[in-house]
């Protein structure tokens, strides 16, 4: 496979401009649900990979929550060794097609890329996507080793990014893995939350299919805490990984929130994505507002407002209480939303949802905000400007201001220690207060990103593997420090 290529000098590498991801025209894509980013060609991807300086001490690996050896796969890629690059990437990351599309690279690998100091970083995310998509299209060219079965059984609760990653890591180590999923389909937030135009559902399904082909069993329609209790599972399995996410929607707690036309982002996106209401022939009902206000500034808010636009809203507005620079969403999502004609009302906070006499939303009453001193998150604290109330006329309001823990599982597991907010407490190995029961993702750290949940899944799987082998989850040697969740983007 490897072809002889002229080796570039550092100066030549520095002279290559960063690739731009080809995308659907904003006016066209704003009314369809097809993926916005179109992907790179092999030629362009190999050229972009030449921009990597192969740093002796690569910061990008430390910047990655699942520690992908980025210089290694980029080197193989630019040498034209696609099977090698794919094997290298898949060895580190169980869901590269997903992360190549949804990671906030600008605050992770690309944020610490040496090239970003003088110009622009290597487009690591785009290259990860290219290699991952190539791997998906060429399964026969990948190395496939069936591990020796260990005879140990592991149950994973939840099939979102943390659960799927842990499943991939554990099955690779020869354990017998069963995932219990509450919904009828696997993928968690990847299928119910993130829209088709950002993460096509057949991509997620292909990642799930790859895990199933590796031997992972998936049991849908199983709600742990209802269909089975955690103590029951503990009796049936040698170890358990809890990755149920932080699934309960947070509402604004303002008057009028129960009016018709007010959705949680969870409900809105689940109807559109998992239940297929983006398709006009779907049996799942969805409201089509002409004017839609989405409250929040994270990725979920961007997904909701861009969905509303695609479902025909003439005015789709982000209502955010801080400013543009404080938006916690991925930079690319904000940029795409702006291109698609999304309006941003910054420094605005809702105080009431106003209804008409038939119980439908007619407007969102808001107050203007001004930014003060930084708060605990390091972002400027917004404060209302007295007397600045005004109305945003709209027929629909989508509340995307975060999620919290769901007590469904924990309430039926009295031995499981949780924080006052209902998040599961773990030790440094990811083990909970129940022996052999580990936890990770949003149900431990609070609402965060796909990749941080995947990092938890990967680390917990390693700890579970040690625990299953030796009875101790503790690491033998010190590993790289765990990335902090403080910069997490919702």
């Amino acid at each position: 496979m490897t072809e002889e290529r002229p080796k570039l000098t550092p100066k030549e590498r520095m002279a290559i401009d960063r690739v731009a991801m080809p995308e659907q025209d904003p006016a066209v894509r704003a009314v369809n649900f097809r993926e916005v980013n179109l992907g790179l060609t092999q030629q362009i991807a190999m050229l972009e990979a030449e921009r990597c300086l192969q740093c002796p001490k690569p910061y990008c690996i430390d910047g990655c929550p699942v520690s992908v050896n980025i210089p290694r796969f980029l080197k193989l890629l630019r040498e034209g060794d696609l099977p090698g690059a794919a094997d290298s990437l898949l060895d580190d990351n169980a869901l590269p097609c997903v992360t190549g599309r949804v990671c906030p690279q600008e605050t992770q690998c690309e944020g610490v890329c040496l090239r970003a100091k003088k110009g622009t970083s290597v487009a690591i995310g785009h290259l990860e996507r290219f290699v991952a998509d190539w791997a998906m299209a060429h399964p026969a060219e990948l190395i496939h080793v069936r591990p020796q079965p260990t005879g140990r059984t592991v149950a994973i609760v939840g099939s979102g990014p943390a659960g799927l990653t842990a499943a991939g890591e554990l099955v690779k180590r020869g354990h017998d893995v069963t995932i219990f999923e509450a919904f009828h389909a696997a993928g968690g937030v990847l299928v119910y939350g993130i829209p088709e135009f950002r993460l096509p559902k057949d991509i997620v399904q292909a990642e799930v299919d790859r895990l199933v082909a590796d031997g992972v069993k998936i049991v849908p329609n199983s709600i742990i805490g209802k269909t089975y209790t955690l103590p029951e599972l503990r009796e049936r399995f040698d170890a358990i990984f809890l990755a149920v996410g932080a699934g309960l929607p947070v509402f604004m707690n303002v008057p009028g929130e129960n009016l018709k036309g007010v959705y949680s982002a969870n409900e809105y996106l689940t109807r559109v994505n998992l239940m297929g209401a983006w398709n006009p022939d779907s049996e799942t009902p969805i409201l089509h507002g002409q004017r839609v206000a989405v409250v929040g500034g994270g990725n979920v808010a961007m997904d909701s407002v861009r969905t509303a636009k695609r479902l025909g809203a003439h005015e789709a507005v982000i209502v955010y209480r801080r400013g543009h620079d404080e938006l916690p969403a991925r930079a690319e999502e904000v940029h795409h939303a702006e291109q698609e004609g999304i309006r941003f009302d910054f420094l605005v906070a809702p105080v009431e949802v106003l209804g008409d006499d038939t119980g439908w939303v007619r407007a969102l009453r808001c107050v203007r905000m001004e930014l003060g001193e930084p708060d605990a998150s390091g972002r400027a604290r917004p404060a209302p400007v007295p007397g600045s109330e005004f109305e945003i006329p709209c027929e629909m309001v989508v509340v995307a201001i975060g999620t919290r823990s769901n007590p469904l599982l924990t309430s039926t597991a009295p031995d499981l220690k949780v924080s006052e907010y209902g998040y599961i407490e773990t030790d440094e190995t990811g083990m909970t207060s129940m022996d052999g029961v580990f936890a990770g993702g949003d149900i431990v750290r609070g609402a965060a990103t796909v990749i941080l949940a995947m990092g938890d899944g990967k680390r917990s799987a390693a700890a579970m593997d040690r625990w299953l082998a030796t009875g101790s989850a503790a690491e033998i040697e010190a590993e790289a420090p765990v990335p902090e969740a403080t910069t997490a983007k919702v």
Partner: protein
Amino acid sequence: MHQIVARDQLSPNVTRLVVEAPRIAEVRRPGQFVIVRLGEGAERIPLTIADADSAAGTISLIIQGIGASTLDLVGLQPGDAIRDVAGPLGRPTDLIDHGHAVCVGGGVGTAVVYPIAQELHRRGVAVTSIIGGRSREWVILEDELRTAGEVIVCTDDGSYGRHGFVTEALKDLCEAGGIDEIFAVGPVPMMRAVAELTRPYRIRTTVSLNAIMVDGTGMCGGCRVSVDGDTRYACVDGPEFDGHQVDFRVLADRLTTYREFEQQSLARREACLIPGLAQHAEADQGQGAAAASAVGEGVAR
């Protein structure tokens, strides 16, 4: 896949399906529900578990065919299968274990009070059931409820049992006294009328709310209801609440959210409907069902 092992027609638009679901049959308790999804692309529909046979590994679902999705379900025959059945969901009924309980069922709501009456009877509670329908053919589960105690049947047109609404029969019982708890399930106007009736008597009155929901696990928040001024989720905090604290206006209003969508969806199906079924769906005006027939899939329970 969950096989249909038996099917019978309880009233012109209410069908009972006995469905294979061994784990749910084993662990379900009265008051709980399942969410079913007939096949790929179909809606998720919440349905009360009306009965269960843990030995046979089956549950009974009693379904009113009123929307496109519920009409698809009631069209199933033994040997057909439902792709997804998730549960048991919701909190089990908080049951008393002595005294006298009155179970009031309006229309398909009778299917929700039936397992409660059954369990109360098993615990030694004296049970009186009051069930209603527009006319004789709309009354369901009378024989089943008789195994749990006395049954008073009411029909709007007087064609069977007592002439009048269930609330009138209930008022007589309240006047007579000695009731420890009332369970009332039916269309929203009926539950509201029962709650208003029992309030002055200070009899604990539990109602089951048929809010619209997607996941049934607290994730979507679509089923939020207002109880004693607080927002609660029917799927995880309920579905049963103190009827004296429920804001029925909010419930009834939210149930109309997808009325337009439902009507369009039904219109699309009209060509494939069994003649007469659509008219029945429209015609079930009995016992306050007029409001309920327009509420979309949320009423399925």
